[in-house]
């Protein structure tokens, strides 16, 4: 156990002007790059890492964590305002956030997103600070076979609850996984489906897919519908009652179960490497809709939906640090970048971290809590800015978004190649939407695809390819049973619900 005076010294380290200033700078940068489509917090962290080499470790790492946390709050802003998530994590937020904004209540939607994001983030930070060691040991015991079956379960949930019909969801799933196989195969490094393009060795760049599928189709659609009129992207009634701008305590409290569910799902999935916040947000959203008394009100501006999605995606970030700090294992791309930041200071995240660097770690914990408060205040201020920005004519907003997407993908995904890939993905996205195939299921399948393939090949190696050896993995079998039960229950309920028609 870390002595109490070390914890206090660490926390005292946080509350120095330099650290607080850098956390604030990180949060502001994070919210900005999160809110503006194109660059995104992960890219911003990657760009910032070499600069932290000259900083004190606590300052540098707090700064990067600030960017990550700010990014999640910022990502919800364009999702709510113009239906184009700034980061893929916020795609689920758009489901209810955008309809609410279209009803002329963008402030209300952004407030709900901010409050639930900060709530989910704080909850998972508290779990990280208090019980990360035992949670990390549980995560360690879940090996590739268990993760494989967990991923299969996640696929089932997403196909059934987000995919429309099972057949259409299944097609989307298959196409997403197919796209994820482009590049070198993990086992023998054989190039697959690259058609001579060496740039595709590492697969289709994530940025190109995220922007091409989630953002550009909406931007193009809105530009096409603009018909030259200079109307604002969102109309806000001039004499709007306060209740349509604010979230009352009662409304916040009514979302407590949605946020609790979101934070729990986010924390659990965040502690397991490789699943990520986008899937967590959709699973939490789907679970909240499935358990609601009025599921048909979701997708039409229900604040419960915003609360579930935002609390889940933010909870992932704190929980990602559980395996990172205790075992040195990154749970996401952002967390992997943080390991790099620790390492350039000669600090190796892992079991010795709490012994050797206790002061730094508690300083970091202090900085995370401080970042949550700053996220709240910067978010409040930023909201006014964004709601003003969105009053600009639609044509201006969407043209700017288009330019920012092009710049972002050029920076993040290898120059013109990234740009062409993004445009190809846009066409694919439009085609899928036209065919009624869920782009959400498609993109989550793509995000999880390489993890799925790796765990599949790992499981094959571990068991020597023998199905009998699966008997040695009771947790995996339990997940399989749960999965089948879910499918059975879902098809039966759907059948029953369909009967009155």
């Amino acid at each position, binding site marked *: 156990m870390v002595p109490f005076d070390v914890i206090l010294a660490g926390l005292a380290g946080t509350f120095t002007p330099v650290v607080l200033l850098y956390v604030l700078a990180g949060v502001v940068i994070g919210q900005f790059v999160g809110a503006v489509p194109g660059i995104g917090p992960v890219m911003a962290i990657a760009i910032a890492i070499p600069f932290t080499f000259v900083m004190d470790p606590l300052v540098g790492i707090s700064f990067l964590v600030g960017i990550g946390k700010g990014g999640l709050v910022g990502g919800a802003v364009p999702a709510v305002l113009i239906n184009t998530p700034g980061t893929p994590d916020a795609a689920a937020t758009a489901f209810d956030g955008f309809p609410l904004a279209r009803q002329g209540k963008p402030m209300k939607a952004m407030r709900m997103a901010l409050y639930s994001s900060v709530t989910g983030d704080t909850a998972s930070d508290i779990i990280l600070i208090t019980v990360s060691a035992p949670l990390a040991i549980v995560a360690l015991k879940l090996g590739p076979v268990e993760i494989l079956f967990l991923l299969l379960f996640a696929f089932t949930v997403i196909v059934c609850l987000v995919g429309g019909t099972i057949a259409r969801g299944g097609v989307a799933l298959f196409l997403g996984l197919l796209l994820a196989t482009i590049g070198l195969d993990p086992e023998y490094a054989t190039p697959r489906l690259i058609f001579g393009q060496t740039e595709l060795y590492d697969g289709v760049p994530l940025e190109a897919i995220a922007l091409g599928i989630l953002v550009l189709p909406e931007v193009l659609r809105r530009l096409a519908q603009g018909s030259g009129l200079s109307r604002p992207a969102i109309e806000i009634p001039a004499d709007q009652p306060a209740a349509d701008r604010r979230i009352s305590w009662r409304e916040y409290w009514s979302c407590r179960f949605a946020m609790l569910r979101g934070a729990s799902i986010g924390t659990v999935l965040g502690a397991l490497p490789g699943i990520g916040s986008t899937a967590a947000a959709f699973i939490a959203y789907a679970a909240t809709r499935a358990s609601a008394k009025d599921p048909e009100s979701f997708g039409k501006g229900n604040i419960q939906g915003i609360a579930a999605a935002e609390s889940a995606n933010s909870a992932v970030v704190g929980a990602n640090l559980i395996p990172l700090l205790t075992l040195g294992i990154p749970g996401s791309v952002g967390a992997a970048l943080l390991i790099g930041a620790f390492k350039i200071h000669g600090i190796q995240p892992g079991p010795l971290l709490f012994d050797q660097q206790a002061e730094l770690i508690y300083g970091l914990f202090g900085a995370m809590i401080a970042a949550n408060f700053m996220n709240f205040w910067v978010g409040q201020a930023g909201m006014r800015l964004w709601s003003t920005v969105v009053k600009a004519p639609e044509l201006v907003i969407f043209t700017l978004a288009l330019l920012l997407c092009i710049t972002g993908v050029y920076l993040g995904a290898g120059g013109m190649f990234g740009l062409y890939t993004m445009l190809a993905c846009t066409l694919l996205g439009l085609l899928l939407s036209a065919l009624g195939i869920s782009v959400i299921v498609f993109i989550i399948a793509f995000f999880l695809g390489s993890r799925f393939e790796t765990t599949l090949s*790992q499981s094959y190696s571990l068991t020597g390819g023998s199905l009998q050896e699966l008997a040695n993995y009771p947790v995996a079998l339990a997940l399989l049973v749960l999965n089948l039960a879910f499918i059975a229950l879902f098809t039966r309920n759907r059948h029953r619900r369909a009967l009155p028609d």
Partner: protein
Amino acid sequence: MKLNTLLKTAVFAAAAALSLPQTAAAWTPEEPILLRIGFGAGGETDTMGRVLAATIERQTGWDVVVENRPGGGGVAMLSALVAEDPDGLVLGMAVNIPPLMALSQRPDSVPFTLDSFDYIGTVTVAETALIAGSEAAFSSIGELVEFARTEGSAKIAWDAPDAKAILQKIGQKEGVSFRMVKAESGAEMNKLLLGGQVDAAFGTGAHLPFVEEGQMKTIASLSDKRLSSAPDVPTLIESGHDFFIAPYFYIAAPGGLPAEVKTALADAMDKAVADDAVQTVVQNAVSAPALNLGAEGTRKMMHDSLAPVGALFDQ
């Protein structure tokens, strides 16, 4: 007239005298140098490359702009690099194993050979260890083979194909089964080892805190010499298995650089690698000291490594 000639001579002499000490590095770039890193932003290669670039800027006053060109462990970056003009303004940073593997396995699929490049120098060579949980019943490669024989198989996590190939060769030779489990990083190998899902794994630095903590042990060195982190542990070669891996991080330029450009670049690189900032970041990133083989040394290393790397993948 005479004065004029005298003046001219004096000016010429002064210019010659001023430029004399610089003849070795007469070339200075007139535009920013682009350093393309064959891996994504934020990784070990990226971090080392960026600090190297910043150090060269500080020491020479040149502009060095870093760009990430990930794909195939640097093969994508090198494939594009061969098409650039050899004017010293575009350089690439890569790790030698992926291009050597591509050249020995499927030379037709890559648009370059080893001679398509001019080599500027190396930054470091990473060390690879074979590791196991501290409770494991084996403490050497020989005992691991016997363990696999009695248990039916041993599960070994890998993330670099050359390390995997070495263990497979040893398994074939000894007639035992190694179940080789692919991991995506050193961190994931640690996870699999600590979680008890595999019996052994490879370590390239991320494992060191666990060795120090007493949760893991080093059972062999896969480098051609003993590891700086575990000098008591023998190499595979010492244990009678004639294999080793030496992943060099190196800088190359499109082939055909003018001699003075190449010399200037190699000198700048040599000074930068000797700098404290680079030494520190290399040690922190790969847990091995910075090492520059020089322009000629790097070229020789690439040519000498091709056959051994190819031999690893012969069936």
